[in-house]
């Protein structure tokens, strides 16, 4: 009986302790009990931190001593906070579940999201497929707080319902910033709506493109969120610093000086935190740049790849990535800057025994991409670990429910076991080991690529010495465009040679070298296109072989930036101008022939400025007939102005104007004649 009374007395004297014992005995931990413990711990930490400086102790020693003294309390506080957060989360979830309507109301007009009907969408198109998704109408009044964040007229944006009827934003715009704010002001990530292609050879590339874009959206969103959180955290720190400075001033004024250390501690923590966080933000920025570069490379490759699937009108049947393929300096080869080897494939070989090796090469980018995806994911995880460490080192208690650590976009469950400094340190080590592992695998793939490429070259040399040894692209030449009932995939071509008939051969490497000189008028190697046909000699006695054409090849002045019509005026002058005059025997004037003028477009022409040069210059008369017709002509006569015997030569030149287009061209015809007797 005495014992019972004693126990009853003890219970009455220590009611709190008995409650804790009761809880411990039942194994039940409640939010209330944890909150109580938290208050006690915080009070104890505060008491130690506010304690006086010991005699002979300097500032650093004081900080160290107080840090050591509070370590166990702080660790316990971390645990308590974590448990509290978990419990609160569970309780909130339970509350939400019990109050959730059958069809969730998502806006003030009472509009509801209705799950899309089967067949209306393909969940695989959404980067969060597997969690269920489907398109819904644009909820224009979805955000009431910050409408500017959600452009209603963004044609690349769609709204979808996610499980539980939550609206989410998806986009196909590669320049989208990747996030939006919901009606409660919460930061949300936009999802990448996958692009699809019907062009079979390009499907793999489109898969990688979608994967990269999905990562890019997430990373852009995370950067924006971390920036905002940093700002928020820095403001809180500054408030603390302000208070601590105030206290330290009070401490100094009353002579104790004991709070100066705390002010400094907050100051140090602030600087440390800011530096750590800047590093984190830089890492995100670097990752974004890298992803953007990869996406652009892949977009260029897709644009190139889809040319294989052009229809009759030259349109591609596949996708537009939004990031076009035309980049300055593009090599046109399918090189991917991020691949850890010098990829210029896909590869093929003409040597049958070596084909397996070429196929082995073609399988490597996919393997490398797999490792690169894992590496990228691990690197992002490391960034978050660093943020956790920065937050922890700055003296705050790690609360995974803090918006700073909204980790849904990475891996919702990954970080729940990391709340203490030691756990975080172990986590960092683990992720660093993963990163090293993926890097090693990538290196192995790169080495393998080199090895197989070497083997392929060796194989070709050994088994096919007479064939072209070069490892080529998968499709040598080009694939015929569908025409005349021929399917594109059933026909290929390659240009074997180009022979010059007349004028400039744009496929002749030597001739290309001369073009700059021809532009500047310093090239005299080869006459370019004559616009007139040199006359054909009829008498063997006269040397009428055409000489250098006189028509300039390029109208050089004035500078005209507007190109002329696609088909330029080409004038053809034909005819033979020749005479044999016998003084006293032939008629005067004597006919020397005629010149016919025509053009390539059949328009009416006028001939002007006809002149004769050479020793015939004073001996010939010219008369133009049929001006403004499509085929004007020039009659030429020997005028008998001189009876001097001899052989005379000259050139008849003139200007021809197209009366429809006003284009002009010149012609020239060689002439010759003899005077005897």
């Amino acid at each position, binding site marked *: 009986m005495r014992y019972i009374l004693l126990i009853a007395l003890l219970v009455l004297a220590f009611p709190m302790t008995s409650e804790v014992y009761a809880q411990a005995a039942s194994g039940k931990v409640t939010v209330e009990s944890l909150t109580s413990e938290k208050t006690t711990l915080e009070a104890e930490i505060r008491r130690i931190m506010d304690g006086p400086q010991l005699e002979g102790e300097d500032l650093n020693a004081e900080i160290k001593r107080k840090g050591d003294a509070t370590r166990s309390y702080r660790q316990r506080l971390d645990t308590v906070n974590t448990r509290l957060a978990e419990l609160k989360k569970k309780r909130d979830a339970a509350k939400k579940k019990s109050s959730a309507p059958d069809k969730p109301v998502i806006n003030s007009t009472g509009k509801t999201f209705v799950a899309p009907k089967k067949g209306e969408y393909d969940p695989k198109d959404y980067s969060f497929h597997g969690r269920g998704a489907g398109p819904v109408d644009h909820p224009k009044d979805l955000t009431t707080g910050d409408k500017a964040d959600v452009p209603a007229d963004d044609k690349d944006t769609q709204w979808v319902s996610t499980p539980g009827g939550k609206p989410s934003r998806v986009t196909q715009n590669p320049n989208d910033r990747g996030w939006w704010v919901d009606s409660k002001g919460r930061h949300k990530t936009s999802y990448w709506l996958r692009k699809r292609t019907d062009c079979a050879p390009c499907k793999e590339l489109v898969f990688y493109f979608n994967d990269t874009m999905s990562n890019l959206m997430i990373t852009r969103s995370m950067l924006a969120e971390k920036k905002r959180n940093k700002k928020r955290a820095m403001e809180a720190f500054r408030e603390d610093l302000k208070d601590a400075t105030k206290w330290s001033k009070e401490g100094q004024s009353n002579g104790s000086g004991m709070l100066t250390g705390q002010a400094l501690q907050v100051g140090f923590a602030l600087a440390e935190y800011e530096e750590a966080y800047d590093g984190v933000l830089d890492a995100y920025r670097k990752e974004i740049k890298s992803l953007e570069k990869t996406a652009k490379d892949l977009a260029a490759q897709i644009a190139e790849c889809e040319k294989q699937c052009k229809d009759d009108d030259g349109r591609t049947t596949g996708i537009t990535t939004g990031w076009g393929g035309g980049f300055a300096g593009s090599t*046109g080869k399918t090189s991917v800057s991020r691949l850890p080897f010098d990829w210029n494939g896909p590869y093929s070989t003409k040597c049958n025994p070596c084909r397996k090796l070429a196929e082995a090469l073609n399988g490597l980018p996919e393997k490398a991409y797999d490792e690169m995806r894992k590496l990228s994911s691990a690197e992002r995880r490391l960034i978050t670990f660093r943020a956790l460490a920065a937050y922890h080192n700055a003296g705050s208690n790690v609360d995974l429910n803090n918006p700073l650590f909204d980790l849904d976009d990475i891996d919702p469950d990954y970080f729940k076991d990391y709340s203490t400094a030691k756990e975080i340190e172990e986590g960092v080590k683990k992720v660093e080991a993963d990163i090293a592992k993926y890097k090693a695998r990538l290196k192995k793939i790169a080495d393998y690529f080199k090895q197989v490429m070497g083997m392929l070259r060796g194989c070709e040399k050994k088994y096919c010495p007479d064939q072209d040894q070069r490892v080529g692209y998968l499709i040598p030449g080009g694939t015929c465009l569908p025409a005349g009932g021929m399917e594109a995939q059933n026909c290929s071509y390659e240009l074997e*040679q*180009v022979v010059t*008939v007349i004028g400039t051969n744009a496929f*002749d490497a030597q001739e290309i070298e001369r*073009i700059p000189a021809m532009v500047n008028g310093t090239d005299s190697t080869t006459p370019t*296109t004559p616009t007139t046909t040199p006359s054909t*000699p009829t008498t*063997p006695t006269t040397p009428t072989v055409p000489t250098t054409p006189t028509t300039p090849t390029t109208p050089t002045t004035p500078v005209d930036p507007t190109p002329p019509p696609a088909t330029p005026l080409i004038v053809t002058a034909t005819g033979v101008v020749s005479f044999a005059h016998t003084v006293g025997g032939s008629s005067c004037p004597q006919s020397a022939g005629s010149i016919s003028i025509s053009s390539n477009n059949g328009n009416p022409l006028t001939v002007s400025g006809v002149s004769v040069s050479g020793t015939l210059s004073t001996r010939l008369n010219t008369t133009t007939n049929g001006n403004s017709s499509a085929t004007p002509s020039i009659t030429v006569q020997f005028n008998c102005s001189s009876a001097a015997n001899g052989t005379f030569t000259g050139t008849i030149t003139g200007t021809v104007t197209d009366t429809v287009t006003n284009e002009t061209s010149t012609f020239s015809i060689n002439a010759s004649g003899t005077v005897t007797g």
Partner: protein
Amino acid sequence: MRLIATTLLILLLLPAVSSAKEFRILKAISAPGKVPAGAETVQSIIPVDRQIIDKTVRAVVGSWNSSDLQKHLGDDFYDKERLGDNIQQFIPRDAKLSVLSIQGQQTLQQYEEDGKRVSRVSVVVQTQVEFNDPQNGYQRFPGTTELVFKVKQRL
């Protein structure tokens, strides 16, 4: 006599311009040629569809002065690498080659190999290199060339 011979020789060398009324193209006559080992010659040549060649010509000409050109050229194309290098070095970036007209086409040779009908097709094309020179203004260099393609069609 020597003069006559010289004149005749020159006339032979300039068949395209020797006609009085028009440009005439020297057309090759299709004739049996060497075929690769294992290939079978055909009884009679089936001309490659004109539309296929037209589109092919436009694709090749359209790719001139771009990185795509190389892939249209066969492995035996003369000075293949140098052509690409020279275009890059000597031709302005805005220069383009346009097709003014596609003239005669002829299937010169045909054989069957690996389940494919391989044809060697000649096509005469009038083209023009055009670009704007900062000092001298608009430039054009017309030319008529004969392109020879090897076309492989699945049987």
